[in-house]
């Protein structure tokens, strides 16, 4: 359709032991295309995936770089294990960039076929720098070694239309559609800082494009700012050993063992194949973990209306494979087919909605006071096709709703939108306004941190209250878990490097329910091990879910069930079998820690990686309002008696709230001290030179950043 403005040929590199050894660099300002070598140094220190992304990003930016600076990059890499087909969850791409929400590196992981097909096209990593003058798309043809940049003004904007059109355009026939994958955002990314990227994979059974999202941190906003409408890759010929594994036999053996485990146990455990991650909604509500009405409470009697059974029986298609990469028998990427849209530009059309995942049902549902599965699915569809991160949108809208509930902003200030908790029609209208860049939609997508400023400075809201109830740290919105009773998780969120996303640590059950980590040291150990371990998935190209959303039948008999030792061993075995190396489970953690500490130093370099940046809003730690205290009065009173030796009978409600707050804030300080020590950081949260040396990361450029801070 559009004019081709750049045509570039290359010889696709052959993959050896998991690496193609080449990365692709495209500069959009001058349409420069270059190939870079993946060095042994990079493999040694950074392993792949997020490691490669951060290393390239580090060299692209300066401390002054902001999300919309031309030198900011979107970097993506799938990692050495990415693209193997024999194990579940082996197609995850990791992306990094300087985020519009946080001004520090964001990382986001995503399924879909793009990353593996990019690697099979010869590229371990892909850097996108500069800004295009005109709106363009980039097409990578991995079979023929060709990259084309094409003008793309006239293509539709929203994902479900754009991806379908581009998939058809580049596929030769129906059977070829699975070989095309599209990355794009949507109209919502234009007018918000929470634009996300959709990664497509074609579903040959339903004959539609399906999507996974690189959701967090505004990557879609950045792609849009660079004037890139879409990235398209095409590679025909996926086979079991394109990664040139050193030992295919082990991969096959471990893979079959895992597939059989899914077959035998999933229906008895989490039912990932039936409902996906939303299986936990009721459990979360029962344990007071389901964020409800901006995290004010942890559940609601109405939650049964959005229970897994409702979605399974009434909405989600059952019995078909729903994996976001080949070989994923966990098959959690569920969807609602033939779903009738009732609002907005696509009203009256029937679509396939990818989801709802847990975050969607919890965030766009309970956290907004919406207990209506149909409304949740429609919100889900629009977030996806508009390219809006539904987690940031949900948490941010929940904040707006509470500001409205507490009289901090008025209906007029929201352009007439009646954003009461539970009003899904108003929520949908807000999404449409963000997509059109109209009304309240012009500011509602800027994120909580910017809204707090606007509400205080322009609408006269109370800054202290907004600070307490705005669920963001470092500028990123919290993901959807209430966690007031888990100190370890409070740390897991607020001390997470990129901002409060649960992919670093999810310790709530270990901490709060099973009481396995009672002391500060225990919690600090968990806040060392789990973030390190989980970082590893993003280095090598794997999905976290198959690790512990299914466990071997005898897992409970092991010495550390929370770690799922047998699955960790599977990962060690697969890593060695692909790369020919000989790591063990300790070396795996070391690989992760190198990148983890690097990212922390990177954040320090960008001005946001110190103690002051690791504090949560008080809503994360305890009851802000009287209603919150009263909703669990018995528990809080008991804690006053047992933990502080106070007599609640002699105190009024405000005194009890204040005493609880003092105690909990002090506990959090003590946790920070313990975690910082365990991670090898100074009291101020800076990685020490000794720690960097111990893990082989005492690189001069890192020492230069931390030395003035010591």
């Amino acid at each position: 359709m559009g004019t081709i403005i750049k045509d570039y040929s290359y010889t696709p590199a052959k993959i050896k032991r998991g690496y193609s050894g080449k990365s692709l660099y495209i500069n959009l300002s001058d349409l420069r295309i270059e190939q870079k070598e993946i060095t042994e140094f990079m493999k040694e220190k950074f392993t792949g995936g997020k490691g490669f992304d951060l290393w390239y990003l580090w060299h692209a930016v300066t401390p002054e770089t902001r999300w919309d600076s031309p030198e900011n990059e979107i970097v993506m890499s799938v990692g050495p294990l990415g693209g193997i087909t024999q194990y579940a969850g082996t197609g995850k791409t990791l992306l990094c960039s300087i985020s519009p929400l946080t001004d520090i590196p964001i990382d986001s992981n995503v399924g879909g076929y793009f990353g593996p097909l990019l690697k099979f096209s010869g590229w371990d990593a892909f850097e996108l720098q500069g800004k295009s003058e005109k709106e363009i798309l980039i097409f990578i043809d991995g079979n023929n070694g060709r990259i084309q940049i094409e003008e793309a003004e006239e293509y539709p904007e929203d994902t479900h239309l754009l991806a379908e059109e581009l998939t058809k355009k580049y596929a030769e026939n129906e059977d070829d559609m699975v070989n095309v994958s599209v990355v794009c955002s949507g109209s919502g990314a234009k007018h918000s800082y929470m634009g996300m990227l959709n990664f497509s994979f074609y579903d040959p059974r339903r004959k539609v494009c399906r999507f996974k999202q690189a959701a967090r941190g505004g990557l879609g906003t950045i792609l849009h700012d660079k004037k890139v409408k879409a990235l398209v890759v095409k590679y025909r010929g996926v086979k079991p050993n394109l990664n040139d594994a050193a030992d295919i036999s082990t991969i096959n053996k471990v893979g079959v063992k895992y597939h059989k485990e899914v077959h035998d146990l999933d229906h008895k455990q989490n039912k990932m194949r039936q409902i996906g991650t939303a299986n936990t909604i009721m459990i979360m509500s029962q344990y007071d973990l389901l964020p409800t009405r901006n995290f004010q409470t942890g559940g609601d009697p109405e939650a049964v209306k959005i229970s897994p059974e409702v979605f399974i029986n009434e909405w989600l298609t059952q019995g078909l494979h729903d994996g976001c990469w080949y070989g994923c028998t966990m098959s959690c990427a569920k969807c609602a087919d033939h779903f009738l849209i009732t609002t907005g530009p696509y009203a009256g059309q029937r679509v396939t909605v990818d989801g709802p995942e847990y975050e969607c049902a919890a965030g766009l549902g309970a956290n907004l006071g919406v207990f209506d599965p149909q409304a949740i699915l429609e919100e889900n569809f629009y977030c996806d096709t508009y390219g809006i991160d539904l987690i940031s949108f949900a948490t941010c809208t929940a904040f707006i709703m509470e500001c409205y509930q507490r009289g901090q902003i008025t209906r007029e200030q929201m352009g007439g939108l009646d954003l009461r908790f539970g009003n899904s029609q108003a929520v949908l209208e807000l999404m449409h306004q963000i997509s059109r860049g109209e009304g309240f939609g012009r500011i509602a997508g800027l994120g909580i941190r910017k809204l707090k400023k606007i509400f205080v400075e322009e609408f006269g809201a109370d800054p202290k209250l907004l600070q307490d109830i705005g669920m963001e740290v470092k500028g990123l919105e919290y993901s959807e878990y209430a966690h007031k009773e888990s100190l370890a998780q409070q740390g897991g969120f607020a001390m997470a490097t990129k901002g409060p996303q649960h992919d670093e640590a999810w310790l709530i059950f270990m901490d709060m329910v099973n009481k396995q980590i009672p002391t500060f040291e225990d919690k600090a150990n968990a806040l060392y091990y789990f973030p390190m371990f989980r970082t590893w998935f993003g280095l090598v190209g794997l999905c976290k879910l198959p690790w512990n959303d299914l466990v071997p039948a005898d897992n409970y008999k092991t010495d550390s069930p929370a770690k799922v030792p047998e699955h960790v061993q599977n990962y060690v075995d697969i890593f060695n079998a692909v790369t020919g190396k000989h790591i063990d489970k300790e070396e795996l953690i070391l690989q992760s820690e190198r990148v983890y500490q690097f990212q922390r130093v990177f954040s320090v370099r960008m001005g946001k990686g110190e103690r002051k940046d690791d504090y949560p809003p008080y809503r994360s730690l305890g009851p802000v309002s009287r209603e919150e205290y009263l909703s669990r009065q018995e528990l809080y009173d008991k804690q006053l008696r047992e933990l502080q030796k106070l007599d609640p009978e002699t105190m009024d409600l405000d005194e009890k709230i204040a005493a609880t707050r003092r105690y909990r804030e002090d506990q959090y300080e003590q946790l920070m001290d313990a975690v910082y020590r365990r991670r090898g950081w100074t009291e101020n949260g800076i990685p020490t030179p000794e720690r960097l040396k111990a893990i082989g990361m005492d690189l001069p450029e890192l020492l230069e950043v931390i030395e003035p801070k010591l």
Partner: protein
Amino acid sequence: MKVLTHKQELCTGCLECELACSRAYFKTDDRNYSAIRIIENNKTYHANMCTQCGECINMCTANAIYRDRNGVVRIDKKKCVGCLGCVGFCTELVMFYADDLEVPFKCIACDICSKACPEGALEILVSRVKEN
């Protein structure tokens, strides 16, 4: 639907069927390449092979498994990516693989083994009922 059946009382465990199968499809005498496996238990012989139940069709992660016109469950080799999901999911454990193959294999009710069986213990049954 075509399905291979086995009469236990006639089987002597000679393994001619396995040989016929592995030779026909993979030119080898290695029984690991046979889609029928005879298992001995106390001098009686049980045959393991695909029942053409079709459970693997919808679970295939590449939409490569289908039922052909004769009702036989088959793998489209062009579409299969060798994920081995079907191997782990087959309840009968009769989807087989080998490390040097890119695609798993199973009984396709072709009749080669039954012709090779000296005892007449194997037979292809044809029923009108089409499943799935």
